[in-house]
C-alpha cells in the first residue's frame, strides 16, 4: 500500500516547477529520504494482495511460505539451450537466450526461473494454461 503523505520537499519542488503533483507520480522524481538504509529486504506474499517482510509474518504464514518455497524447489530447472519449441518467456515477453536459467512446470510450459518463481510465490498456477502446479506435482509423485 502506498504512503499517501507527501513530504514537504516534494510539494516545494512541484510548486517551483509550476505543475500539480498528481497521484502516483510524486515518488519518482523526489530524492530518496535521508537515513533510509538501502539494504534490499525480501518481501513475501502470505496472500496474493499482501506484501510483508519476513519479520512481520505470523508463524502460520512463515510455514505456508516455507512449504511453498520447498514445492517450487522441487520443480525441475535447466539452462536454455535453444532446442526447445518455446522461444519466449510469456511473463517478461523476452526471448530466451542460450544460457538463461529456466524452470519447467509439470504442464511442460517453461519460463525464466526468475520470472516464474516470483509468480509461483503468489499463485501456484501456470500462467499459460492455468494448470494448478501442486495438483500436477502430486500426481507426478503418485506415478
Amino acid at each position, binding site marked *: 500500500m502506498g504512503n499517501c503523505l507527501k513530504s514537504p520537499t516534494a510539494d516545494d519542488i512541484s510548486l517551483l516547477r509550476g505543475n500539480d503533483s498528481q497521484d502516483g507520480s510524486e515518488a519518482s522524481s523526489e530524492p530518496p529520504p535521508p537515513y533510509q538504509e538501502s539494504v534490499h529486504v525480501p518481501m513475501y506474499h502470505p496472500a*496474493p*494482495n499482501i506484501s510483508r517482510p519476513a519479520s512481520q509474518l505470523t508463524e502460520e504464514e512463515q510455514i505456508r511460505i516455507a512449504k511453498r518455497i520447498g514445492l517450487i524447489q522441487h520443480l525441475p530447472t535447466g539452462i536454455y539451450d535453444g532446442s526447445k519449441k518455446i522461444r519466449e518467456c510469456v*511473463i*517478461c515477453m523476452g526471448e530466451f537466450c542460450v544460457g538463461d536459467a529456466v524452470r519447467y512446470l509439470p504442464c511442460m510450459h517453461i519460463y525464466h526461473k526468475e520470472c516464474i518463481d*516470483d509468480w509461483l510465490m*503468489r*499463485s*501456484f498456477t501456470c500462467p499459460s494454461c492455468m494448470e494448478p502446479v501442486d495438483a500436477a506435482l502430486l500426481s507426478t509423485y503418485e506415478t
Partner: protein
Amino acid sequence: MSLEQSALLLRRQLAELNRHPVDGFSAGLIDDDDIYRWEVLIIGPPDTYYEGGFFKTHLTFPRDYPLKPPKLKFMTEIWHPNIDKTGDVCISILHDPGEDKFGYERPEERWLPVHTVETIMVSVISMLADPNDESPANIDAAKEWRERREEFKKKVARCVRKSQETAWD
C-alpha cells in the same frame, strides 16, 4: 521482477501497439517520462449502447507488474454496472491472483502475468458489450440494466454524447 524489467515489458508493449494498433482502442502514455501511467481511448463498441462514444481511461501499472494487475479508471463519465461512479473498473481479470478461498472466481478469471494492455482492453471492451450484473460495481446501473432498460439506455446515450464533446479536450 525488477523495476527495469517491468518498465522494459511496458515499453515493449507500447512499441508493439504503435506498430500494430488493435481495433477498438488507442493507447499512449499520459506523460512521456512515465511508462507506468497510460491513457487509453476506448471506442464504444459497435452494436452496443456505447457505440459512437470515445471513452478516455487511465491505466496505472504497479512497479511489480506483471506479477500484479494494473488499475483501470474511466476518466470520461460512463454508466455501466461494472464501473463504479468514480470510474474505477471492477472486472475479475484485474483482481489479484491467487487462491480464491470462496470459489467465486476461477484462477483463470483472475489476474495472470501473461495479460497485456491488449488482452486487458479486449476484456474491458467485451465487458461494455456484455455487463455482468451479478457482481456490480454500480448497483444503481445494474438494477436499471436489469429492470428499466429504457432508462439505462437513455443514461448511456447521454454519456456517449458527452464523450463525443469532450474526447479531444
